[in-house]
């Protein structure tokens, strides 16, 4: 229970920072809406439902990237990460706290983006909604770990999309597949598998990313 207590304390701190600075969530919200509007003009009028569904996923992925790029910025300034690493809690709690916080931002952005998508492009299936939830978990578990890697390097903001996108392709496949095929179950199952595998891997390896 101490572990959950630590995770909550860390996630709470991130929400507090966001409340203070307001520099991530509003940006994500505006960005995702802007993406949807841009797509409206990028598509021919008779674009199929499948094509717009794919674009929704691109919008989600890039909005998540925007949030993830900011994820470890407060820790990078003044090397606060050292302070967290020194604390007696298990290091993976730092990762899980970050996952919880980024997940909260992403879900908040989607709470606006999905209705907007339904409004602009007409309709949203339950399968897509379920896939979004599962994909969010995968995006944040993998993304939080990669974000910690990226801030350690010189290239930082530039690096995260490069690290993240190849790993996000399976998420995209699962999400798009659940929306456009007749049997979403297989794709949702695949997303569950992805989440489980990478959550375990990220949980086990985070300590190595933040310590020497």
């Amino acid at each position, binding site marked *: 229970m101490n572990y959950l207590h630590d995770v909550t304390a860390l996630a709470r701190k991130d929400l507090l*920072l966001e409340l203070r600075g307001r520099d991530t969530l509003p940006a994500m919200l505006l960005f995702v809406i802007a993406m949807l509007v841009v797509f409206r003009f990028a598509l021919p009028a008779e674009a199929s439902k499948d094509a717009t569904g794919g674009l929704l996923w691109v919008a989600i992925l890039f909005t998540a990237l925007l949030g993830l790029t900011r994820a470890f910025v407060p820790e990078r300034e003044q090397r606060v990460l050292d302070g967290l690493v020194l604390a*007696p809690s298990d290091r993976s709690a730092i990762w899980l706290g970050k996952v919880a916080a980024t997940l909260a931002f992403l879900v908040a952005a989607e709470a606006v983006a999905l209705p907007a998508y339904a409004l602009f492009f007409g309709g949203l299936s339950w399968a897509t909604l379920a896939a979004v939830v599962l994909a969010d978990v995968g995006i944040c578990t993998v993304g939080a770990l990669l974000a910690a890697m990226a801030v350690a390097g010189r290239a930082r903001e530039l690096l995260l999309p490069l690290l993240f996108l190849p790993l996000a392709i399976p998420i995209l496949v699962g999400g798009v597949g659940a929306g456009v095929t007749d049997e979403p179950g297989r794709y949702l199952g695949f997303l569950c598998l992805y989440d489980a595998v990478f959550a375990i891997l990220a949980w086990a390896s985070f300590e190595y990313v933040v310590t020497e």
Partner: protein
Amino acid sequence: MIHAVGLEKRYGAKRVLRNLDLDVEQGGFLLVTGPNGSGKTTLLRLVAGLAAPTGGVLEVRAERRDLGFLGHEPLVYRELTALENLDLYGRLYHVPERRERIGMLLERFGLWEARSERVATYSRGMQQRLALCRVFLHDPSLILLDEPFSGLDAEGAELLDRELAELRASATFLVSTHDPERLAPLASDQLRLAA
């Protein structure tokens, strides 16, 4: 409590520490001096476990919760207040009666009035005081201080003198400084690192 033989630390090809032997008994107070770039900070980071040695043996008989570490940076969030920062650390260290302890420390280091202001608005000296509050918050038994007096004004330095004298009997210390005179009366041993 700290035992090192032939300790070596390299960053890439650059050797920062070489062949260092070190022994600090429980209750000891080791003063580390030496010019800039002699590896004082690296030594403290090694002992804290923030860096891994590239050679030699290093044994530190203390768990992470027993460790109090003051580095160059205050290790606090600039956009949070002093109270919020200490509250976070208090939770992570599972400090009993957290609020009372935080209030007491802020009072003692003269930050109580500024407790609800963002750290970004603090002066260098106030940030150092807050960093010291963070170090002492969980009552550590092994205290590592890297230039603890830097940034402190006369009043702050006296506060720290008093605090160190008070804790001298109950904790083990490893302190790096440019100004060994000030701490010499407390020290049980001195280590001079060559450039």
